[in-house]
């Protein structure tokens, strides 16, 4: 096969191409944006496995591209996500968003092919810097501050990565990005940097903080790249690190509580994103060929159905202007197609058989069971039920059904419908023909998701979760407390175990808020509030001193130096 642009690092086609968007004639912007990821994908698949691009930068040998099976599957899905996102965003007039989104996608792709830590770092930071514009593009004061918080955390992750890379270089003399052990300062710094991006527990707040604040189309891009890039990096660098198993298990379980009480639908999805990442992190931690395959497959399937869910919620936000559960309901009459697509996505994330989530998640579960991680397995099982509850039922139910909010609007724009339709079709296709996905995986493993045990177990789980939801809804008194239901979805629990639950809930909400808002805000503005007084032009250090004090300091310093040299 002919190699297309063999010397251009993978991902740069999209990234550099995006920079030309401002000068493309207006009518051609749409086709041009769609062509970039397609071209990139063609380029990727024209390159043979083992293909590398090597450069020398500042006396260091760096490798911006290394094609192997792990990077190829992530590269493929990133390209597809970029294409879906671009299609979804076609109606947007703001070219700044287009440039930012595709530079972001391109740098994420490039990062997935980085063969050394420096190229990884460069693209790591590029994803951070380009993606923040998707938040700022909302052009509200709130989006600006949220964006700043997001940026600080992301850049911090990059700086940790750089520090780790340099220490790693000092320790081992190599910059190659390969599997590494958690020993020595370098690998720990790198691990921490990946952990921030992968939204490990207690490092996760930036995600729920920022994603719901981005533009309608921006969130779709955000949900696809940043965290999955971190998953890829963990897969490459820390496969089989046992520490990841408890971390991942925690990630699957704890966001469920927050997702259940949350009112903003896009924030619910952000929490469920966190939960999904947990499965992948567990898969990386187990580290067998089966579990790595499971992680890669789950990332692949997850990007599509998560994007689909964010797209459907974005379509609602676009048409209705709000995404608060309490203000929505009954929209299936106005947006029937969006409803169908959303439900496919919701069923896929719940791992319903014959949909994509089922064929990928079961691999991780099987790997956990095979390696006898019993507790982990149980936690994952519990989390599966939770996912079904908040993403599978809550999202479509409160948005499109529940009580009728009386809101009537138009169906989503045609390009949004096309993007959602494609994504929904992919969810179904992967679910029915999983072998095409399995063929892409990093390792050759014969695996069949459709055994009787798998299907029956999963169906039981889903039915049970559905039943629980149904019973809870039935048990309530509708009209007067309707609003409360929609806000919190917790009134049945409250009736059953009132005191305990309300305390638990208050605690959760407080903890959530403290972490998400105050904690983040405080880290970001710790310096700001404290040092403004000192360093502003009116402050002691920010204002130029008069000549007198300056001369005095010179004299004092002379004395100090003389003393130093005297002894």
């Amino acid at each position, binding site marked *: 096969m002919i190699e297309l642009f063999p010397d251009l690092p993978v991902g740069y086609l999209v990234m550099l191409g995006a920079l030309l968007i401002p000068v493309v004639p207006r009518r051609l912007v749409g086709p041009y944006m769609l062509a970039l990821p397609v071209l990139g994908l063609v380029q990727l698949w024209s390159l043979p496995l083992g293909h590398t691009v090597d450069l020398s930068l500042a006396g260091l040998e760096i490798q911006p591209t290394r094609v192997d099976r792990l990077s190829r599957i992530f590269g493929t899905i990133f390209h597809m996500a970029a294409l879906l996102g671009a299609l979804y965003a076609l109606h947007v007039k703001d070219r700044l968003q287009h440039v930012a989104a595709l530079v972001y996608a391109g740098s994420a792709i490039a990062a997935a092919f980085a063969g050394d830590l*420096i190229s990884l770092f*460069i693209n790591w930071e590029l994803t951070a810097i380009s993606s923040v514009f998707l938040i700022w593009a909302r052009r509200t004061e709130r989006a600006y501050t949220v964006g700043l918080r997001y940026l600080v955390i992301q850049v911090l992750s990059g700086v940790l990565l750089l520090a780790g890379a340099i220490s790693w270089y000092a320790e081992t003399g190599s910059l190659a990005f390969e599997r590494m052990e958690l020993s020595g300062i370098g690998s720990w710094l790198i691990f921490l940097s990946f952990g921030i991006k992968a939204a490990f527990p207690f490092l996760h707040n930036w995600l729920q903080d920022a994603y719901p604040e981005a533009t309608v189309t921006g969130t779709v891009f955000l949900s696809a790249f940043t965290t999955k890039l971190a998953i890829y990096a963990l897969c490459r660098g820390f496969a089989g690190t046992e520490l990841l198993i408890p971390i991942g298990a925690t990630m699957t379980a704890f966001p469920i509580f927050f997702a259940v009480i949350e009112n903003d639908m896009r924030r619910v999805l952000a929490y469920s994103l966190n939960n999904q990442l947990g499965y992948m992190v567990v898969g990386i931690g187990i580290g067998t060929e089966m579990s790595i395959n499971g992680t890669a497959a789950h990332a692949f399937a997850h990007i599509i159905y998560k994007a689909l869910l964010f797209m459907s919620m974005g379509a609602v936000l676009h048409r209705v202007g709000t995404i608060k559960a309490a203000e929505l309901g009954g929209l299936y009459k106005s947006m029937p197609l969006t409803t169908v697509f959303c439900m496919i996505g919701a069923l896929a994330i719940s791992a319903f058989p014959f949909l994509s989530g089922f064929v990928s998640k079961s691999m991780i579960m099987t790997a956990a069971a095979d390696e006898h991680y019993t507790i982990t397995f149980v936690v994952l099982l519990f989390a599966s039920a939770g996912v079904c509850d908040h993403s599978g039922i809550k999202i479509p139910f409160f948005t499109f059904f529940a009580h009728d909010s009386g809101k009537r609007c138009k169906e989503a724009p045609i390009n949004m419908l096309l993007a959602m339709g494609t994504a929904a079709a992919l969810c179904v296709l992967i679910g029915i023909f999983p072998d095409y996905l399995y063929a892409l995986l990093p390792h050759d493993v014969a695996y069949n998701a459709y055994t009787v045990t798998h299907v029956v177990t999963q169906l039981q789980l889903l039915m049970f979760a559905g039943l629980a939801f149904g019973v809870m809804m039935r048990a309530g008194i509708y009209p007067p407390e309707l609003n409360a239901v929609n806000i919190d979805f917790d009134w049945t629990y409250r009736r059953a175990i009132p005191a305990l639950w309300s305390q638990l809930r208050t605690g959760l909400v407080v903890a959530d808020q403290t972490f998400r808002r105050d904690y983040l805000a405080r880290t970001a503005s710790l310096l700001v509030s404290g*040092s403004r007084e000192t*360093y502003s032009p009116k402050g002691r250090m920010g204002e*130029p001193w008069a000549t007198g004090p300056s001369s005095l300091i010179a004299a004092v310093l*002379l004395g100090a130096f003389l003393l130093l040299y005297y002894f």
Partner: protein
Amino acid sequence: MTLHLPAIAILLPLLSAPICVAVRHALVTRLLTVAVGWGSLAVSGELLRQALSGAPIHYELGGFAPPLGIEYVIDTTTGYVLVIVSTIAAVVFSFGATTRGAALPAGREHLYYGAMLLCLAGLLGMTITGDAFNVFVFLEISSLSSYALIGLGQDRRAPVAAFSYLIMGTIGGTFFLLGIGFLYQATGTLNMADMAERLASLHRSRTVHVAFGFLTVGLSLKLAVFPLHQWLPNAYARAPAVISAFLSATATKVMYYVLVRMIFTIFGATFVFGKMGMDMALVPLSLGAMFVGSLAAIFQTDLKRLLAYSSVAQIGYMTLGLSFNSVNGLTGGLAHLFNHALMKGGLFLAVACLVYRVGSSRLDDLAGLGKCMPITSAAFVTGGLALIGVPATVGFISKWYLVLAALETGQYLFAGLILLSSLLAVAYVLRVVEVLYFKAPKSPDVREAPVSLLLPTWILIGATVVFGLRTELTAGLARSAAMQLLGAGS
């Protein structure tokens, strides 16, 4: 002709200055200045080439042999700094070659060009000379002309800023002179090579210790090492932006060079770091500069002052590299000399473009200019990225060596602090980006700056990217200079 090249390098700007003042004709002086700038660059480049191809050049001025006569010595380090200074001079002079660039009242341009040329002569002289007292003479030439340059600003407060700079500068110069005096008393010579030879046996002499103390503080003052930096923000903020571009990119750089010469050539690293323990004082001061400078930059409301405080922080990086006393550290410091000259020169020129159209450098007045002046704004953003140290810009190269130097000596804390202070740079650069791109413009009908201003700006800004990718010239030269200095000193 090539034999007298070292003398020509100095005489060219030195003699052109009075011609400018005598001619008084705006166009003639303008062209002469630009010609001298590029001529200096050619001479410096040739000197660097000669220094690289063989042994250091020794040139006896007027044919009087040292130690009595004055000697010019050009080794790799000298050539490197000469090229930096004259590159900046050539580009900035071209920028100022239009009346618009200089932002000066008509009728006083010849004074401006004269002072610029004198300043250039002083800076080149300080670099090239191998005679300690001669350094002082050139130091005063460059300082006096820079006081005049700052005082030329149209800002009503410019003369006051120039005056307080004059006082601080004179204190620095006096300390330096006292130090030279003590050294002369102890060694009986003013020639640097001679001094170094005789000092080897005088390491216990109190006179030498005192001399070293005066020299350290005097140079630190002129270099604007924290906490002796306070003259700098005022001076750079009040001067016309084009003059700030020239001074910030050259004056402090040459002072850094003189400090390096003093430490490694005259006193020797063993004496400075081993016996005197200068690094014990220099490291905390450098760290202080990095953080105080960056923090102060974050909260400034005037763009020129913001850049000036950022300079204070960048000087901290350079002195930190120096105090590691290792090849990598000194390479980082010297590479940053060139890199910072490029980015700060370019950034100040971009500010000059903005000021030319808007008439103010207050951040409030620059709101939304990203739309009206996209090319200038892009230049500022690129320079800002270099300031942060983003890879593929020069800023990354120097920080790489500094962090490497910190790690190889096991000082993980310093490595962390260097990276942390880069985060502060992100903050102040992004503040400007936010003002330029995300605020509503005050007056939407502002036009892009003229090409004659954009071209020099982009030469420097473009160079920050080019040399960020091709590092043989900067890092390679800095490395061989560092090795030469450390080899000579120990």
